[in-house]
């Protein structure tokens, strides 16, 4: 039956695409154990030498520390402004709301360098020196859109009726916010936090312009790359991959716990929705 051969061809194609998606990562991991380093085939002389070298590399680890610090701050800033922004888009009406909505989403799809260099201009105009703080500022600003989108999606799924019930039972707006709204958004917020953290760790485009003396991890790797490829980079890349894998498993685990329908959760992917143009309708 043609149906069978059709779907078999499709399955083969799907496998091929998956292979394409994972091939570089697999190569990276395999070659991080390769004796002679990058290149050459087949890989031989398996060794942990590069990981050992990595362990002793002070500059890398200080950049990792920097990155983590920046990422944590970015999470705080992005959520701190993103949660109210999502709430505002969901339930407040004010002049310029449509413009605000688009403005908040812009850094998500504009080339990162534009956000970076325009912030640079601002800092220069205000005569602020570049440092890790300016990077925190940049990441936070760029990633507010991620927080807003995730929380907004969570608000859409939440029940307005619960808040109304709370008010009906005598709680004030603030009490309702802390006791009902925020707990309902717990999963969205945690998901957003994980995503923001991961994106911040990997962020280059904005950081490029706002970097001071201290490097973040991607910029540290970047400066090494300009000097030439060292297999050490394979090792750190593998570690980054495993870390990302861990984060996404955590995100997946949290998302599927306590959400009404797993299917709905996955279909409402945070990154895709802004571009569907459908999610943030005028309210």
């Amino acid at each position, binding site marked *: 039956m*043609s149906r069978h051969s059709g779907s078999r061809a*499709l399955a083969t*194609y*799907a496998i091929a*695409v998956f292979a*394409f998606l994972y091939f*570089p*990562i697999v*190569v*990276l991991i395999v070659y991080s154990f390769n004796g002679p380093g990058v*290149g050459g*085939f087949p890989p031989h002389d398996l060794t942990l030498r590069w990981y050992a070298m990595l362990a002793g590399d002070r500059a890398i680890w200080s950049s990792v520390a920097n990155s983590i610090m920046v990422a944590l701050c970015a999470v705080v800033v992005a959520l*701190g402004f*993103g949660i*109210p922004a999502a*709430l*505002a888009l969901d*339930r*407040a*009406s*004010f002049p310029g709301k449509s413009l605000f909505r688009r*403005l*908040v989403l812009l*850094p998500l*799809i*504009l*080339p*990162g*360098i*534009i956000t970076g*260099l*325009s912030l640079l*201009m*601002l800092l220069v105009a205000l005569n602020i020196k570049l440092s890790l703080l300016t990077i925190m*500022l940049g990441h936070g*600003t760029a990633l507010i859109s991620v927080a807003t989108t995730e929380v907004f999606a969570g608000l859409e799924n939440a029940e307005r009726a619960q*808040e109304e019930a709370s008010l009906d039972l005598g709680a004030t*707006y603030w009490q309702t*916010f802390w006791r009902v709204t925020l707990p309902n958004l717990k999963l969205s917020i945690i998901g957003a936090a994980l995503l923001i953290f991961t994106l911040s760790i*990997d962020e*280059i*485009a904005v950081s*490029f*312009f706002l970097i001071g003396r201290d490097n973040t991890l991607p910029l540290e*790797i970047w400066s090494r*790359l300009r000097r030439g*490829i060292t297999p050490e980079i*394979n090792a750190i*890349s593998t570690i980054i991959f495993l870390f*990302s*894998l861990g984060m*996404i498993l955590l995100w997946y685990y949290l998302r599927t716990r306590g959400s009404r329908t*797993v299917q709905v959760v996955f*279909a409402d*992917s945070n990154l*895709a929705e802004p*571009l*569907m*143009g*459908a999610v943030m309708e005028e309210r």
Partner: protein
Amino acid sequence: MFSRAYQAAITVPPLLWVGVFLLAPYGLLFCYSFWAVSPAQTIVRDWNLNNYRELLHVPVYFEVLLRSMRIAASVSALTLLLGYPLAYYVSFHAGARKHLLYQLVIIPLWVSYLVRAYAWKTILGTEGVLNTVLQYFHIVRSPLEFLLYSPFAVVLTLTHIYTPFVFLPVYASLEHIPRPLVEASQDLGASPLETFWRVILPLSLPGAVAGATFAFVLSLGDFLAPLLLGGPSGIMISNVVVTLFGAAYNWPLGAAISLCMLMLVVTLLFLAERLEKRWSFG
């Protein structure tokens, strides 16, 4: 239902932040694009249109922009070619393994962009995995040069990076198609292929448009892949901007180009949104 105080409390802080750190910087960008740089390497606030004139008349900028758009279009087409069938498979044919496969597509997204671009760099080089394998199996006799430091490498890398990005909205729109519609179509005599063509494809267009636009816009503004893998023939418009803010020190010109990119991106997104609205049903 919500008091004015509550509304003010949730509106004002983000509004302020966005105003100071997004609106003002874009505003500055706007202003800079009309200024000039003096020979002494200082910014002269001399309002003029020279930067824009330069963009239109100096061929190299236009060429680079054109090349960037070509690369972005190729990436857009390729990611759709890879991402759509993948999304269709996961949505309609994956059965019980659907969620697992979905996760498998998302995982590369979470892996550092730099790491993935770097991985391709190691694969495509003359000493890289691909060349050594090809030579090992005697498919070619000497390493292929065009693999790296070329637009080809940029397109390949960006396709790899953005295929999951395209997968997401396409998958979402496919998932939104109620399964009874597919059954109804078959019930009325349409084979699976006809059902795809007459029912599934039209209803998934908004997602495909969103994905393709996303891929195009992000590729257009990309600066890392061309820098790592593009070589001189693979320079894209963002690299030009970065240089103008760096060694070439011409912030006004850089701002002008950035503003053009901004306008282009916003226009494309606006058009895409209109298209999506027109093609979304029910």
